[in-house]
């Protein structure tokens, strides 16, 4: 095992982590701030990716170009989903929310299966195989783009939550719905807005993921655990934490694959999650709950 191989794995892990961060940022808002256990997060990513893929396959629109549209559509979809399904079904109760989002995940996953069959789809664009030379390493351009956008998105979300009225309203409602109502904020609308922003992030993530990844109805499962691990690892509700957590997880996964082989490598994610939950549930950046 040479230094070059390890370095490549590290860098590769960081880049993958950038992609993971994109997926986790939305969940950081939904789960970390609102404490909605959004079990549908992975499935919603899958839906967004299929949307991006359809635009590419039918209308030849490059996913990078359709990003604004997909983001908007996913925002709207998430808003409606929360307002008219999740909120109605769960009436705010924790276990009900858990089960409602699980139900949504199951419906979305299988609806996709029915509509698109289990086949794997890809969208090969100019970016899919482009490489960038960085010293001795060859880095996938698409992943570099994702990495950059993830950092930018993380900053944007952090700014949104700390420096804008909307962000403050969201945090207020998450903390104290009744108090928020007393100062004129509408909890139901605000939760829906926040959920929509979260799914909007997934829209962006989907467009950035598609060129270098694939989509099939099953990918929801793959990403759900990753996303939750990152959110808890980073410290619930912390956007910088989520980015760091994502990079860390990417590296763990990459090194895991290097050290344990391709079959056993993926265990890095589950073990990391279990370890964080059992040993440090407040994550790297969170305060003790």
């Amino acid at each position, binding site marked *: 095992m040479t230094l070059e191989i390890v370095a490549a794995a590290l860098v590769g892990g960081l880049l993958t982590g950038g992609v993971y961060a994109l997926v986790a940022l939305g969940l950081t808002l939904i789960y970390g701030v609102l404490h909605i*256990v959004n*079990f549908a997060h992975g499935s919603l990513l899958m839906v967004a990716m299929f949307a991006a893929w359809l635009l590419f396959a039918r209308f030849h629109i490059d996913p990078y170009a359709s990003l604004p549209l997909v983001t908007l559509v996913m925002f709207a979809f998430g808003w409606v989903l929360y307002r008219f*399904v999740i909120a*109605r*079904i*769960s009436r705010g109760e*924790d*276990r*009900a929310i*858990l*089960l*409602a989002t*699980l*139900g*949504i*995940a*199951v*419906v979305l*996953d*299988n*609806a*996709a*299966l*029915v509509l698109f*069959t*289990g086949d794997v789809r890809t969208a090969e664009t100019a970016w899919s195989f482009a490489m960038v030379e960085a010293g001795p390493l060859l880095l996938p351009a698409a992943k570099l783009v994702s990495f950059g956008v993830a950092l930018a998105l993380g900053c944007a979300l952090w700014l949104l939550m700390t420096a804008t009225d909307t962000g403050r309203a969201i945090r207020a409602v998450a903390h104290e719905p009744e108090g928020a109502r007393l100062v004129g904020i509408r909890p139901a609308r605000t939760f829906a807005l926040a959920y929509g922003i979260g799914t909007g992030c997934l829209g962006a993530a989907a467009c950035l993921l598609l060129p270098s990844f694939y989509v099939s*109805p099953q990918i929801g*499962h793959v990403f*759900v*655990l990753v996303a*939750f*691990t990152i959110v*808890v690892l980073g410290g619930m509700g912390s956007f910088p934490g989520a980015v760091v957590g994502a990079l860390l997880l990417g590296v763990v996964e990459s090194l895991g694959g290097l050290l*344990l*082989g391709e*079959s*056993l490598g*993926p*265990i890095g*994610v*589950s*073990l990391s*999650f*279990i370890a964080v*939950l*059992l*040993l440090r*549930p407040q994550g790297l950046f969170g305060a003790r709950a």
Partner: protein
Amino acid sequence: MISRIVAIALAALALVPFALPSQSLVSLAFLAVVAALLGTGWNIAGGFGGLTSFGHAIFFGVGAYATALLQARHGLSPWLGLPVGAMLGGLIGWLIGVAAFRAGLRGSYFALVTLAFAEAFRVIANSLDYTGGGLGILIPLRPGLSSFQFADRRTSYALALALLAVALAVSAWLRRSRFGARLAAVRESEDAARALGIEPLHVKAAALALSGAITATGGVLYTQTYLYIDPTIAFGPERSVEMLLVAMVGGAGTVLGPLLGALVLQGITEGSRALSTTPGVAPMLYGLVLLAVVGLLPGGIVRLLRGRAA
């Protein structure tokens, strides 16, 4: 009263496959009974204990692989699969319970950690030669009592019914017993339970262990009937979700709930197959039923039959 009627009706229904000659009917009934068995296992932790688990496939898979490995790797009698599987399921349930509850995990955190454990087991099963890796384990066909394989599906069905009866008896005992009362108390208020001399950690871990043991027997039965197991069948998320669905739809925390849930879900599967053979239709309907139950019938079908008594 309603419960007694329903129980009698179900018992009668259970005997039908013995009367009719159709093997496909028996196969269907078998699947329903296994689903009910697994759901009853889940219900002990998730329903009676309020410990919502998203990774109960751990226990199913442990039982399934235990019996497969005993035969394929160690040449032991498959009949050992039941006690060994149950013990392993119980042990793992206890260990996971102690670890998770000592760390203070509850609610959604607990659900997620069970999911992570199930995924970890899946990856391990997928990577070890001992477990057959991604190809899984195929049990050689050898019909006969000593090899725990039956040419007539009706025998498997009878065994499944027997195991289900045991599981239901355990559920009923839970309802009446001191342990069950303590579990309910811990579920409702851990602090108040502590003040009355109950140690929540022990009670919850024990419930998870009991749940694990019962669920594992379902895994054993499944593998012995279909003679094949692989990491996804054993530990995959679909398995975990199915168990949860059966109990929630039928009525979590009731004895007969998982039975009714299994019947409803089996009915949906068959009904949707009549309409369309596209894969995914039946599970999609399950998802919709779950949403309907959570939103409209939080107590499940059982409580609907009882007139929505609180």
